[in-house]
């Protein structure tokens, strides 16, 4: 019985990914037809992956939170705060390694605060992380005095994550890949991952099964914060700055990618691969629009349409599965 269930579940997941892969292939065909000389070049593909890396890392954390039945609206703001905190002159005096550690600590710390408020303060995730969004962005502005903080001389090791290439691919893409791989293993091959599905699917049942639901919920938000900290390092590498304007509306991009990827907003079901495919679709759209010299406003319309179509398809699939 159990085996049958998990088998259909897996097949269901694969079918979903198939849809996303088809969408990606279609977009790639559009690219090949409209801008043949620029699209399929190695440097363009690398460029797409580098662009996807920052939000990609955040999306991994977001996938965990949403599968666990929550939502994290504060990811962009936390990333901005971490990037600012890590690039103050005081932090920079300690060198690139401490800057990276600082970004991760700030991200994880802010995520932990989210988690405590939600799990033990019994706040609704939407509200708690909304409060964090506003407060973290405000703190970032205060700390930076609303200025763009450049990475100083001597700390170029951070920037090197973006400029150093191994086998033609920037280091930050490897970091992205590593985060995805570790995320996948944790979600699919560990107790933590199984508990995440359980907590998101039915918290009451999870509690009765002996899972410490509150503690687990708290850890999920801390994990999301940790991912924001890693993303902060990547955005510092790419832009050579920390700024309170970084990551504006990233929460929406990340949530959209997760939704397109087939994760249910109600929790309990979803995959990291799906989220990453969803994100790649978005990044590819941006890339195609700019390669074709089209207006950015139309991009937003296209992205909106894709979200609607994805969710409608998702609902149809669910119905089919139910019958």
């Amino acid at each position: 019985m159990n085996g049958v269930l998990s088998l259909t579940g897996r097949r269901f997941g694969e079918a979903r990914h198939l849809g996303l892969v088809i969408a990606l292939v279609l977009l790639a065909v559009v690219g090949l037809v409209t801008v043949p000389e620029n699209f399929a070049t190695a440097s363009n593909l690398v460029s797409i992956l580098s662009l996807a890396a920052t939000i990609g890392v955040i999306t991994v954390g977001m996938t965990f939170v949403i599968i666990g039945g929550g939502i994290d609206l504060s990811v962009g703001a936390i990333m901005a705060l971490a990037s600012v905190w890590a690039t103050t002159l005081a932090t920079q005096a300690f060198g690139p390694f401490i800057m990276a550690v600082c970004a991760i600590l700030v991200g994880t710390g802010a995520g932990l605060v989210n988690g405590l408020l939600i799990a033990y303060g019994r706040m609704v995730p939407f509200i708690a992380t909304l409060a964090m969004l506003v407060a973290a962005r405000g703190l970032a502005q205060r700390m930076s005095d609303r200025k763009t903080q450049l990475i100083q001389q001597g700390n170029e090791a951070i920037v090197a994550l973006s400029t150093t290439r191994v086998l033609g691919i920037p280091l930050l893409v490897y970091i992205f890949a590593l985060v995805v791989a570790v995320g996948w293993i944790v979600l699919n091959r560990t107790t933590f991952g199984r508990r995440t599905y359980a907590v998101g699917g039915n918290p009451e049942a999870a509690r009765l099964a002996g899972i410490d639901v509150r503690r687990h919920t708290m850890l999920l938000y801390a994990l999301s914060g940790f991912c924001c900290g890693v993303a902060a390092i990547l955005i510092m590498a790419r832009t050579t700055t920390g700024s309170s304007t970084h990551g504006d509306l990233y929460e929406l991009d990340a949530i959209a990618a997760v939704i397109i990827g087939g994760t249910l907003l109600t929790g309990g079901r979803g995959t990291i691969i799906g989220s990453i495919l969803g994100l790649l679709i978005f990044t590819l759209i941006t890339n195609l629009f700019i390669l074709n010299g089209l207006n950015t406003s139309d991009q937003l319309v296209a992205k909106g349409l894709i979200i609607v179509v994805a969710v409608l398809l998702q609902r149809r699939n669910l119905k089919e599965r139910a019958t």
Partner: protein
Amino acid sequence: MSENVARRGFLAGGVGGAVLLATAACTSNQPAAEPSAQGSAPAPAPAASGNDQPGEKVVIGFSAPAADHGWIAAIAKNAEAAAKQYSDVEFKPVEPTNDINAQISAVESLIAAKVNALVILPNDGQQLNQIALQATAAGIPVVNLDRVFPDKLAYRTWIGGDNYGMGVAAGHYVGKKLKDKGVANPVIVEIQGIATLPLTQDRSKGFADALKTYGFSVTAKQDAQFTVETGNKVAANLLQAHKKIDAMWNHDDDQGVGVLAAINEAGRKEFFMVGGAGSANAMREIQSGGSVLEATVTYSPTMASSAIKLARLIAQGKGMSDLVENQVPQSITLASETITKENVQTYLPLGFES
């Protein structure tokens, strides 16, 4: 069990707090040793005549949008620095805000306080026109800074930059340089700010018009959103779209930091780039000479210093000493100046930290 949970929660809270405390030591932005240009506003030049001598005491109210951008931050800083120069000026800034409604009530509070002159950089000229009219009706002269009120009755004097002229200056630099090089059909790329803003459209029009006089046109343009991150993203994609570029104009030096990072990452060197606004960082880049950024065209936040000076003169009933008239002019449009390696030295003190 529940007790255990509570204790764990407490522990986790303690850990979280400790993490924040440990990193709290890193929030300072004071440079370790040498004093940097950061934080200091350019000192305005003294007036040629006796206009700088202390006169009648005046209170100048100041309202501007919240600084979410280096340029706006410099506006507030420059205004304050200019006011500090005068013993006869009492500077009364209100809390900066990006909310139209809040700015209206801030200006209302300045009117109620019966200041002698108002300097206003509105979030949106159209939407703050009404309140500026009220100030004028209350007998308070309004100096309109940069974003213009549509109704001329609403203000005494307007001072601001020349967006169209900025595009023209950039267009001439790019056009002349390409012409001198003898490039036929050059690939010219333009990275705009926010495309829907009139100021962006003016800049693009000026750029296109100036290029036309050389027989050139813009090959591709894309809008970033005035932030480092969007500048980086748009530039990275544009560099993919155009394998060989001859010249690039980026409207804004703040987002230019991200644009330059993308160019460096892609290892592209075959073109030259012109910036916009005149940030200190862009100037240092121009000065060092190693970068594709060769020039920037100004849209200088020093206009805020001048606006305070004008407000003071108007409130004291004085004219501008170099002009014949007894009163301050109704409108002053600053010229957009082109900063290159040759003259960057003179401009560096006026640059703003992005």
